[in-house]
């Protein structure tokens, strides 16, 4: 089993590596880092511009594969992702921002998965009843709403709530209130409140997807022969559904988890921007607008590593849940 998971890890590792390299090549071709220097007044000399570009390793006159190679060597040898156009190390910038993104992403996707799986099982067991219909329509409504719209609508709702309450019940711009001083507990609470709305948005997105998928898997399991066997043995319907049904219906969810994680990453990046978090989303946005190739490459590497770990985790879950793949 360990060997199986290791093999899958190696497989994902190469896929991520190649995807990152491709992203590097594509962004190198698509972005023109020199352009903004030509627009400056007074315009720097060609020599100066070339020096800056060479220093960053993004000079378009150097063949792109050569630059890619240098970039990779730099990572392996120096553990460095190069510098951004602002001259600051990309690695340092990512480290300072990653925590913000990961906190939102992990909390949101974990709660979303739990809520979604629960709703899915519930909906399947109560198929076509009112509660099932409500969950179904609710999830379709969420699917039909762009992530950023969910975010903005939550903000509008929170503003209305604050107005009604006559005080700042929910604060939602940025990760924390600037200049707030107080005990460790006050600061943590402040961050928690700031995290509330984007987390709700991410949970909604995650739960909508998980609940639909879990419902359909669970429906298949409901009609499975082994549920009938378990009942024939003397289990009551509900106990058979939980002990045998849910346990088996969780197996395909581990694969779905890997699929949906990409959507959640995009969603959380969008939400960061909407809620003005200084996370990886803002970093990527700036990188594109400033034609910062190293920053774009760094961002893709960050995402690829997240995907690598989530895929491997899903394989671990799969192997843990299903004895049929263990050997």
């Amino acid at each position: 089993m360990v060997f199986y998971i290791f093999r899958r890890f190696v497989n994902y590792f190469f896929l991520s590596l190649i995807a990152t390299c491709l992203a590097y090549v594509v962004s190198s071709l698509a972005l023109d880092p020199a352009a903004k220097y030509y627009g400056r007044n007074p315009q720097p000399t060609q020599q100066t511009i070339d020096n800056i570009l060479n220093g960053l390793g993004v000079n378009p006159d150097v063949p792109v594969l050569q630059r890619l190679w240098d970039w990779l060597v730099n990572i392996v040898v120096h553990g460095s992702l190069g510098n951004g156009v602002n001259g600051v190390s990309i690695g340092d910038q990512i480290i300072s921002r990653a925590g913000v993104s990961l906190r939102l992403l992990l909390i949101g996707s974990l709660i979303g998965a739990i809520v979604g799986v629960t709703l899915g099982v519930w909906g399947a067991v109560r198929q076509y009843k009112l509660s099932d219909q409500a969950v179904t329509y609710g999830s379709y409504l969420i699917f039909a709403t762009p992530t950023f719209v969910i975010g903005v609508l939550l903000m509008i709702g929170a503003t209305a709530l604050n107005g009604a309450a006559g005080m700042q019940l929910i604060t939602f711009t940025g990760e924390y209130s600037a200049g707030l001083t107080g005990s460790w507990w006050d600061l943590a609470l402040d961050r928690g409140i700031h995290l509330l709305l984007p987390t709700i948005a991410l949970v909604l997105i995650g739960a909508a997807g998980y609940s639909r998928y879990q419902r359909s898997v669970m429906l298949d399991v409901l009609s499975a022969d082994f549920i009938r066997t378990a009942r024939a043995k003397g289990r009551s319907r509900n106990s058979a559904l939980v002990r045998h049904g849910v346990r088996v219906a969780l197996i395909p969810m581990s694969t779905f988890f890997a699929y949906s994680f990409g959507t959640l990453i995009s969603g959380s990046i969008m939400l960061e921007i909407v809620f003005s978090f200084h996370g990886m989303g803002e970093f990527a946005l700036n990188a594109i607008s400033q034609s910062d190739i190293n920053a774009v490459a760094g961002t893709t590497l960050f995402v690829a590593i997240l995907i690598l770990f989530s895929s491997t985790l899903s394989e671990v879950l799969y192997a843990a849940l299903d004895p049929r793949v263990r050997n």
Partner: protein
Amino acid sequence: MTNLLTNENPIANRRTDPPLLEVRDLSVTFPQRGGPSVQAVRGISYQVHKGEFLGIVGESGSGKSVSSLALMGLLPSSAEVTGSILFGGRSLLELNDRQLSGIRGREITMIFQDPLSALTPVYTVGDQIAEALLLHDAALSKRAAAARAVELLKIVGIPAPERRARAFPHEFSGGMRQRAMIAMSIANDPLLIIADEPTTALDVTIQAQILEVLEQAKSLTGAAVVLITHDLGVVAGHADRIAVMYAGKLVENGTTDEVFAAPHMPYTIGLLRSVPNMQTAGTQRLVPLEGRPPSLTALPSGCPFAARCPIAVSACLETEPVLLEHAPAAPGVPVAGLGETAHVAACHRAAEIASGALTRPDVFPRPEPLVVEHRERNADTEPVLTVTGLVRHFPLTKGGVFSRQIGTVRAVDGVSFSIQPGQTLGLVGESGCGKSTTILEILEMAKPQAGQILIDGQDVASLNRADLLRLRKDVQIVFQDPMAALDPRLPIGDIIAEPLTVHGVKPADRRARVAELLDLVGLDPEMSDRYPHEFSGGQRQRVGIARALATNPRLVVLDEPVSALDVSIQAGVINLLEDLKEQLNLSYLFVAHDLAIVRQIADTVAVMYLGRIVEYGPVAEVFAHPRHPYTQALISAAPIPDPEIERSRKRVLLEGDLPSPTEQIDGCNFRSRCPLYTLLPPQKRALCESIDPLLALHDTVETACHHVEDSAVLGVAV
């Protein structure tokens, strides 16, 4: 085998006690969204007494499974169940799910058809058996339950039960899974075991083992058994009583001997006459029982069998007959207590049948064989197909990116046979023996790994694409499952014409040919623009046969062509195949596991085991004097739909399952299961252990066994 029926007293005594199970007027209806509801079971009544073995026989959709699930309270919640089910004095239909749970698994247990899907894939077999114990005995410790589970696995004959208890269902073979299901069902010493087609998914040799285990379980626990099956042969040797179901109704109920010897209901007569009997097969034509049961959403007002009944009278169309006793002495006497010892049947004309005024051949006459002017069979004509030393090995690999070969699957390991024009070769063996791979190799027409395939005398390996395409005209196939073999998106006219499009036949000619073919297989040419789902199983198989005949082939490969069909339909298709062979001078390669059908249709038979042919010769001789112990075991495992014969037959049971074809066995590869090997003295065994027997001619039959002269000790003949 225990002989319960000849020893009549215990049963008779039990019958005076109140019945263990009494079903009265049970009906099950499934409401459909936006349509008429399905009346799956319509007012059936029967009794089961302590320790009794009841066989419920019926075709798919007769309501036999639904009625048993109703007993267990396991029907979907949408089902509407009425009537009453009394079990040990309690009315089961009045109990809620929790109360029923206390009875299920303790007093009534159930064994299901497909043991793979019936076991939860994520728990070990031992845990699932222990679960059945723990659910009904709160005082039992987990450890004690696990120990008892191992013990139960041992009882049902699973080798190395301690290790096997820790295995998952997917690590078990089909037969072992069904044994585990039986272990689960006897765990709490039940009073009633319901077995729903427990052997349908299994090979005939494994079926014999499982029925044996079921008998054992029954005698061990003293439980009554209700065996639900479509196979009359299976109940013939085991059941005390037989209940026949048709279109949701019980149409005949009596002791096994009564029902087999003197059936009163034309449907039962038709079923019994249509089933090929391995003893008589090949000597006369089968009696077809045409048509299909009525739709359960739109039942006719009269007898549901009237549409298929050759002796239907106008009364049959008006009122539905009720179950009555029609003993020859006192015809038409209503039965006092339903399901008592009486032999009852639901037919307006049962009295005439019971009294002998209408004999069974009167009801379902045997059709006359097709008269075709006798063709001169030239002995030295070239065979249509010659296969010599065919080998197909698959590498068994492990791992994806860095895969490595860990073994070889010897699917086909040196097979040779030939088929003369107008002849039928039957290829038989358990699943996994290499039958399917053999025919795939022939049909792929690629160069074999080793050996040679000659079609019409041409070596397929030496032909170019155009020649191969031309050769494909001569070899066609009919598949097992007629639903899967026809594209559901195409009208049958297009399906039948498909082989013609390949060879560039003009549309007008194609249409004419389709009409001709439909007529040939007994379908109305008007139906060519209908879709496959509008046809019954037997008709779909006729469409499949028509497609195979479109290009005027010389050889048709028949891959289990009737095993997916209901018993009553099989005879009609077999008769059609026999007629077509005569009319068109076809050659058949007939792959089957049903020995009776092979004996019926084949001229020559080849028995395969683990990729090899172990016995090969004229069908009459092989069946009359099987020389190879494996052939003997196969023949003895096949049930015969005749209770008297079944009870007196001598059986050779094979041990265990087919070994994995990856195993490298020294000497004879049948040695591990050979019933003869165990009887041989050591010096003779040494030969089996060291030398792989080759096919050698004994009279007219080739047999691959070192000890043919000793095989008579097993004493098997049909």
